[in-house]
């Protein structure tokens, strides 16, 4: 069964910015990088559950707005000397549309 969900048009995510995807179970932050690479990560910092979607994105990581933890958008792991990990989800871009692999599957 096809479990890719169409989320939003790529151009509706600002470059180096994000959109929040609300599902029944989890909020997911979908980020768009410089080269139109798209990342999806659980919208919850492993430190104190800060909304990562509201952080500043750089390269393939994001800085949490609450306490400046840097989280890798590729692995979901805290970078630098911090320790912690959050979920990441698969994405793809086709015809200018962003797809997210269904988190429930």
């Amino acid at each position, binding site marked *: 069964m096809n479990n890719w*969900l169409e*989320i*939003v048009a790529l151009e*509706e995510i*600002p*470059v*180096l*910015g994000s*959109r*929040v*995807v*609300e*599902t*029944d*179970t989890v*909020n997911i932050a*979908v980020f768009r990088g*410089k080269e139109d690479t798209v990342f999806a990560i659980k919208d919850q910092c492993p430190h*104190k*559950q*800060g*909304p990562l979607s*509201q*952080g*500043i*994105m*750089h*390269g393939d990581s994001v*800085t949490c*707005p*609450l*306490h*400046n933890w*840097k989280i890798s958008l590729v692995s979901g792991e805290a970078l*630098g*000397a911090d320790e912690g990990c959050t979920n990441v989800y698969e994405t793809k871009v086709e015809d200018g549309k962003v797809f997210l692999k*269904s*988190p*429930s599957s």
Partner: protein
Amino acid sequence: MSDIAKQNLILVGNGMAGMRTIEELLKLEPEKYNITVFGDEPYGNYNRIMLSPVLANEKTLEEVMLNDDNWYQENNIRFEKGKRVTDIDRVAKKVIAEDGTELSYDKLLIATGSTSFMLPLPGADKEGVIGFRDVKDVDAMVDAALNYKKAVVIGGGLLGLEAANGLMKQGMDVTVVHIGDSLMDRQLDKDAATMLKTSLEEKGMKFLMSHASEEILGDGRVTGLRFSDGSEVDADLLVMAVGIKPNFELAKSTGLHCERGIVVSDTMQTFDPNIYAIGECVQHRGQVYGLVAPLFEQAKVAANHLAELGYGRYEGTVTSTMLKVTGISLFSAGDFIGDDDTEELLFRDVASGTYKKLILRDNIIIGACLYGDTMDGTWYFQMMKDGTNISDFRDSILFGQAHLGDAGHGDETRVAAMADNAEICGCNGVCKSEIVNAITEKKLFTLDDVRAHTKASASCGSCTGLVESLLAHTLGGDYSQAPSKKSLCGCTELTHEEVRAGIREMHLKDHEDVRKTLNWKTEDGCAVCRQATNYYLLCENPEYNDPESRFINERAHGNIQKDGTYSVVPRMFGGMCTPKDLHAIADVAEKFKVPEMKVTGGQRIDMFGIKKEDLPLVWKDLSEAGFVSGHAYGKAMRTCKTCVGDSWCRMGTQDSTGLGVKLEELTWGSWMPHKYKLAVSGCPRNCAEATIKDFGVVCVDSGYEIHVGGNGGIKVRVTDFLIKLDTEEEVLEYCAAFSQYYREDAHYLERTAPWIERVGLDKIKAAVLDDEANRKELYERFIISQKPAQIDPWKKHADGVDENQFKSIKITAA
């Protein structure tokens, strides 16, 4: 393992300088080179400055190892342990080791360090005569302490005294022989040296001052030392600690230009462009260094060039010294003797064992010598490196930084005396022992390392001084804090000033332009530099804005709370309001079920717990009722607090509320380096607390007193009096001019209080008071930049600008 496509880099010398360069290089270009390290000692890289504590039984060798064998493996570095390089063939570009190993290089890094300088005395080759330089020497000393009793150390300098102290700790009877009449004559003046000598004597150390050694006695093993006056002293162990000798024979034999060390340029290159040299073996601008701080700065530069980034420059280091003898605090830096053109500030209390001396030239510190109480050493040293003019607090500077009104910490700055569980960082709850343990166990050297690992001083930063003191105290000895030049963040080597000057002079138009033109190390920058750069760009061009480089508060025009909701504070000019205003706010609060409301310190009403998606709707209602954003979330002009003034108050002298409203109407919406608060008090009773605001007005019967640079935050600071004015019009003009000068001159995230302490009130007076034309220009520029700034961001967003930001995408799993 080696990769043909990569270039070969060989490091000769497995010490702190060389390995630091490799570590810096791996951070910049981990894949560029196949790296080989030759070290003639049979260990990994260890922290040589910690050998004194090892000798004094305060640390073990394991504790001072920096890179063990695993580290080399993990980083794919070929480690030729215990192999001495004997030859470099520069034509064939290869190095040859003692055992015949030959390896060719594309780039070579020489970091052969230095050796103990051994006095050429008759008998210097006897058993039991050693230097104090490496693990081997420490082993020899520990060994001698087991079998012998009497030790003599030649040299009453830093190294000699540390060796003597260690040997005493090992149980030996120690005599220090010094050729001069004053200890540590390269670091201390006579008074401090006398106090030091007395304390060491109390610990049991013996001294023979003004004694010139002539011959080492004994057959086979040393038994004593004879002096030029014919007298003798018994010795079973003789340690020579008279200095170090740069180790550059290898470089010299291969034809590299050497003088007192291997001569290098500002890029750490030798006369052969493929060969770099670094550390104690080099001579840079005529200087040879024997301390660790310069090595770290050199390492950064060498790594920068090995990574072919090409913009690092080493320009020399101002060094400072501390003595690693437990129980004795001593700090010295720069020129501590002075000359005819210098002045001396002196504090001497022999009974309490405190001695502080600062040497000033034109009110700038050029040297410091502290004994007993050294906690302010790092502070003095920083001002010395920054060239800070100290005339404003010259009368109290010797009493230390705590005396300047560090209300947050006060006397606690005596870190050495603090209990292990004393809280250093109040924001992150980090206590002294956690920091000390992290420094020793994780081998941290810099403030940034400590911040990354413990979070201490990583939030509000008010305990930075304390953490630096702890670092200095824990590392002791040759620790010297961060390089004199503080870069804006890890993405660039440039300082705030340099980035700003770049933007101004080269007319850089956006973030990309800044990062490209100024050679950023990272593609997108980071959260730190992006916010700072965004401010600097918009300060030059008031229309500029890159939302993705703003902190979420300024992007969403609300204050993010710990649960991810926002708080909303409508502006109430001068704290004035009408029943209609209050009704409107109450209606909004009820409509959006605001869970909690509060009257703020800035005389307005805060509504908490608003969901991001509701923000535009809340703003729409508030806009329609006539409110604009209160910017309670921004690095921006916040509020103007007022008292009631002469319209009601029987003490009031002027219309403080009216003036407050005018000031707020003038300045609202203005983006600033940090938050910025105003107040107007109607009389000197000062009910609006104008003397702890960034810009405060205290009305008096005859006019208006203007006060600036106050701060009621982490570190309370009372304002400096700027000027007294006669009319409201003047107050408005001076307010705009002062605000604009702060906007154009301060570092991002620097409030007016630390800014004024850094640049000095005189500079501000010169720009805003003395130069009328300049004041008018500042005023004009402020007014121009206010035009786009006073378009209410709430109304804009309520009308649909950037609406995506507030809308989440809802999906339900089918």
